[in-house]
């Protein structure tokens, strides 16, 4: 907003003090975070190597690497997204496109999603343990962990997708209707592609939450640190690994630092890649579905 409203500062003592305080606060925050990040970077760099990333953990994680743990993490994440994405996005489409503001059903769905967003992750862990692991008999497995995470991701995916769809001006819906397009194809061919960036943003947020999650996974996916052989095997995710190394393994700090560094780097990387994918995807959707080869009729004109 500084660029929006340029305010000439009148130099009163109170003004100066406020400015000082705000700069100090910002500096303090920067310093604290520089401290954390540099600590982790410094601690992790020494232990980090290619062998560490692809190797299997040995000696409770003190030696070896985190290869099997990355596999488990990816599997848990994949399960969570596969379960939550279709459910979340279709729910968002319903809330944004088909349900009027006063609808009872819409209100109930929206309210329950708010509740879901409020549930602390440890409670998801309790629920996942009671429902997926024991009631459904999935045991401590990638599947229970992934499904528990899916429940957790649902409100994020829905709210970002819904707000993305709501941000599309009604003019587009009216034009589409005036062109005789059905609501279904308006939704799938027009509105969802336009909302792609917010869908992607929600996806990113979801991935970030899922990768960072520990409490919900402790009692659902367990912490066996080997490469899972199937989705019904227990698998330890990276965040759980960091927890275990730092709490339960004397001499595990170096590996924990390195794992934390990998985790943060992975979060950043996923962010960048997904952003790139989203823009590409949108560009492709903006262009025709069968645009390649249009030039052959273009040529004689040119």
């Amino acid at each position, binding site marked *: 907003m500084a660029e929006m409203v340029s305010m000439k500062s009148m130099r009163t003592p109170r003004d100066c003090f406020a400015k000082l305080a705000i700069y100090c606060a910002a500096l303090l925050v920067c310093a604290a975070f520089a401290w954390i990040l540099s600590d982790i970077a410094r601690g992790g760099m020494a232990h980090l190597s290619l062998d560490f990333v692809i190797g299997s953990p040995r000696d409770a994680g003190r030696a070896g690497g985190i290869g099997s743990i990355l596999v488990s993490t990816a599997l848990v994440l994949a399960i969570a997204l596969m379960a939550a994405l279709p459910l979340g996005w279709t729910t968002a489409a319903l809330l944004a496109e088909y349900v009027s503001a006063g609808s009872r059903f819409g209100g109930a769905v929206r309210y329950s999603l708010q509740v879901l967003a409020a549930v602390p992750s440890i409670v998801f862990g309790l629920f996942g343990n009671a429902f997926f692991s024991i009631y459904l008999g999935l045991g401590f497995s990638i599947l229970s962990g992934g499904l528990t995470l899916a429940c957790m991701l649902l409100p994020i995916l829905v709210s970002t997708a819904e707000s993305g769809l709501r941000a599309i001006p009604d003019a587009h819906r009216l034009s589409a209707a005036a062109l*005789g397009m*059905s609501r279904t194809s308006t939704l799938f061919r027009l509105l969802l592609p336009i909302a792609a960036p917010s869908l992607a943003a929600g996806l990113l947020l979801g991935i970030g939450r899922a990768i960072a999650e520990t409490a919900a996974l402790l009692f659902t996916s367990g912490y066996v640190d080997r490469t899972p052989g199937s989705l019904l095997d227990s698998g330890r995710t990276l965040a759980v690994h960091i927890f275990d190394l730092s709490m339960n393994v004397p001499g595990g700090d170096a590996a924990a630092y390195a794992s934390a560094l990998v985790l943060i780097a992975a979060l950043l990387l996923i962010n960048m890649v997904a952003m790139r994918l989203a823009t590409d995807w949108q560009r492709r959707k903006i262009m025709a579905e069968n645009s390649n080869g249009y030039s052959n009729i273009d040529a004689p004109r040119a």
Partner: protein
Amino acid sequence: MHREPEPTPTEPAKAADDPPLKADNGYTLGPVQAGPACCDPQPLIQVENFSLRYGLKTALANVTLDIYRGCITALIGPSGCGKTSFLSSINRLTDLIPGCGITGRICIDGGDIHDPARDVQALRRQIGMVFQKPTPFPLSIYRNIELPLHEHGVKRRADTVAIIEQVLRDVGLWEEVHDRLHSSALSLSGGQQQRLCIARALALNPRILLMDEPCSALDPIASGIVEDLISRLRGRYTIVIVTHNLAQARRIANYAAFFWVRGHAGSLVEFGHCRQIFESPAHELTAAYVNGARG
């Protein structure tokens, strides 16, 4: 050209090979070969006792008028008198507004559009609509037209391409955009966007075009070009246009309908030939409005 109702259409591929019938500034619309002349009016849309309400509020009361085939009918009147509501009723776009209810009948070619058996999407395909603000989808120029075509069953690429070229030529946009069909439609200027919207409506080969103040959001030059285009479409399509620009209504319309707010609801005051409405209005409200606007 292929658009006239007579059964002698030309293949568009051939049309592309032929040197286009050159009108003055790049338009390729040919002369009207057939269709009813405006002096021999045949009603296409018949509106009988039509009322529209939003919730409890009546927006439009007891409108009865005929809209004639191939002619341009201008709807004039002050803001809030139900012109746009009337326009949206013709393609049942008002269905999308919650709490919207109607009484009376609107018939196209004698068939009631509110007939429960009526396929609304097929109806809307027959009736193109252009809005006040240009509303191209935030997709590419090509995709803007392809999307509705695909929806209505035109799936072969060659056909799509031919139609797109045809309609872009019809609205005089082809020369301007043929080398950047795959860039975003939002990169076009306002006037170009509005012509793209008209082209998009034309691509579905409608019989009726509804235009809701199509020029009011444009600058005078773009407005002139679009107005020019609209008058070229006369005869080929039945056009209903809402406009606040009385001079424009006079210039392009064959018929004019004057709406006014009476007792909180819009209603039709007078309908007649454009010249009659403007030069010898029967109703004093019409006279006051037309003269007031003039003077």
